[in-house]
């Protein structure tokens, strides 16, 4: 019996709490949680014996509202994240609109462990108290240094850029295939290869979502991701954050919500305006944004506002011209060669670290 058929059969049989996503990956609906008048809700979640990774997520609370974790406590009762010192431990939690995921592990210094974890969620809503729905995904089983990840490419009205950019012709489109080859080359540095590659055409409002403007359209597009243990890349004509300027990619989260579709953090959006001129660049952006989805962060932020929780990625502090912004040139020997460098460039950003590979190997959608 195929894994997908088995999952469907179990779902139809009414398996109550933990519908099977994959052999070793389960999704559990944790139900609704009401916040206090101060916007805080305590969300316990249970990681099973043999857990490899565990992710809890809560929302939706809307695109004009942000939430984060006040604190996260592990099964031993230790505070493994404190909003007052967000870079002090091996966990990172974003300040995110609509949906907040918390993934463990994002660093070898804080592996997943069995037992009850607790998220103290803070929702900065204009009307309090409010109610959110939470869920969790757990992965158990083997961990390997050689892994694969299934991906879906959803074309959102991009056949004007290259005629083959649709579900029918994508497998034969030269630009798409070069981008995928580059993605595969770069991810090999993580011990990660491409598994099944699925092509699909976006079935919704193509005119609106082929050029993403702002966080709301971005999140709405990601909500259309399938409920599968795969990484969904949406190929669009353009992305701008609302100020008119094109950016090259965005990931839900980071980290993304793994193996669970239908949320505003369930995928990655890639601007493919440059794919004919530079398919390698699109492959690099896929590797970078896909890395975010799988739990990786920038080694150092361009504005020096933070750093990833990993011990073997360089921290750059060489702002030679003291303009408050780190450039690739300033950090040539301190992180600019890493694919997760915030302004990664083709030909320069080609590496991942051992710790980055360790994190990705444990993500719920990665298969040993």
């Amino acid at each position, binding site marked *: 019996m195929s894994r997908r058929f088995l999952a469907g059969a179990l779902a139809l049989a009414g398996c109550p709490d933990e519908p099977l996503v994959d052999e070793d990956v389960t999704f559990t609906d944790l139900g609704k949680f009401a916040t206090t008048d101060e916007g805080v809700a305590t969300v316990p979640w249970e990681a099973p014996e043999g857990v490899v990774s565990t992710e809890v997520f809560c929302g939706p609370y809307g695109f004009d509202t942000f939430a984060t974790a006040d604190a996260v406590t592990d099964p031993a009762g230790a505070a493994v994240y404190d909003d007052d010192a967000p870079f002090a431990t091996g966990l990172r939690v974003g300040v995110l609109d609509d949906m907040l995921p918390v993934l463990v592990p994002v660093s070898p210094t804080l592996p997943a462990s069995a037992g009850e974890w607790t998220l103290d969620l803070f929702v900065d809503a204009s009307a309090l108290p409010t109610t959110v729905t939470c869920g969790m995904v757990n992965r158990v089983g083997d961990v390997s240094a050689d892994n694969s990840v299934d991906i879906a490419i959803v074309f959102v009205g991009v056949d004007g850029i290259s005629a083959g950019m649709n579900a029918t012709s994508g497998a034969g489109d030269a630009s798409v295939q070069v981008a995928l080859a580059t993605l595969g080359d770069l991810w090999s540095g993580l011990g990660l290869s491409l598994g099944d590659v699925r092509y699909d055409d976006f079935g919704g409002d193509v005119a609106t979502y082929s050029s993403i403007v702002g966080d709301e359209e971005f999140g709405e597009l990601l909500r259309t991701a399938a409920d599968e243990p795969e990484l969904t890349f949406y190929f669009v004509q353009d992305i701008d954050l609302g100020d008119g300027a094109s*950016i090259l990619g965005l990931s839900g989260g980071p980290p993304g919500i793994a193996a669970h579709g239908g949320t505003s953090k369930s995928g990655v959006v890639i*601007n493919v305006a*440059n794919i004919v*001129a530079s398919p390698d660049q699109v492959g690099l952006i896929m590797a970078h944004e896909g890395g975010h989805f799988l739990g990786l962060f920038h080694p150092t932020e361009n504005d020096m506002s933070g750093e990833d929780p990993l011990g073997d990625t360089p921290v750059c502090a060489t702002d030679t011209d003291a303009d408050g912004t780190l450039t690739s040139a300033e950090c040539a020997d301190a992180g600019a060669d890493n694919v997760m460098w915030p302004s990664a460039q083709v030909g320069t950003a080609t590496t991942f670290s051992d710790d980055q590979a360790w994190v990705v190997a444990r993500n719920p959608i990665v298969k040993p």
Partner: protein
Amino acid sequence: MLHLVFLAFLADSAHADEALRARVIGLLSGIESSPTAADWAALGPGAADELFAVATDPVALPTQRGNALLALGNFPSPAARDLLTATLGASSVDPLLRRKSALGLARGWGGAAVPTLSAALTDTDVQVRMSVVRALSELDDEGAREALRARLATEPDAAVRKLLVAGVSP
């Protein structure tokens, strides 16, 4: 001696140009972030020449060219306005560049760009029309609202109509 000083000056100048170009390209190439008006202002007026060079370079990446056209709105000049107007009106040009030109015109010339933008509301490309509607909607200008209202009566595309409705709302 004077000769050597002059050569050193030329070398310094070339180095400065190279550094400025690298800064401009960096701002045009953000993966997940985009430059602010303050970022452009910090580069000084010399950045406009670099933006012109990228915007008109046929081998530059489309997103860099588009972002250069948009950023020329931060350095308004007659030459920049001519370039943006010509790009917006050229139906054979990459729609991405035409869309960024519309937004750049609104950014740089405000209400003075309304006639040019209004004329582009009938463009055959849906994405260009959407960007023109966005550009007009961002202007606090009665002429812009009037143009949006007029287009609402004939606009055939649902997505553009949705933006038009939002644009004419108070």
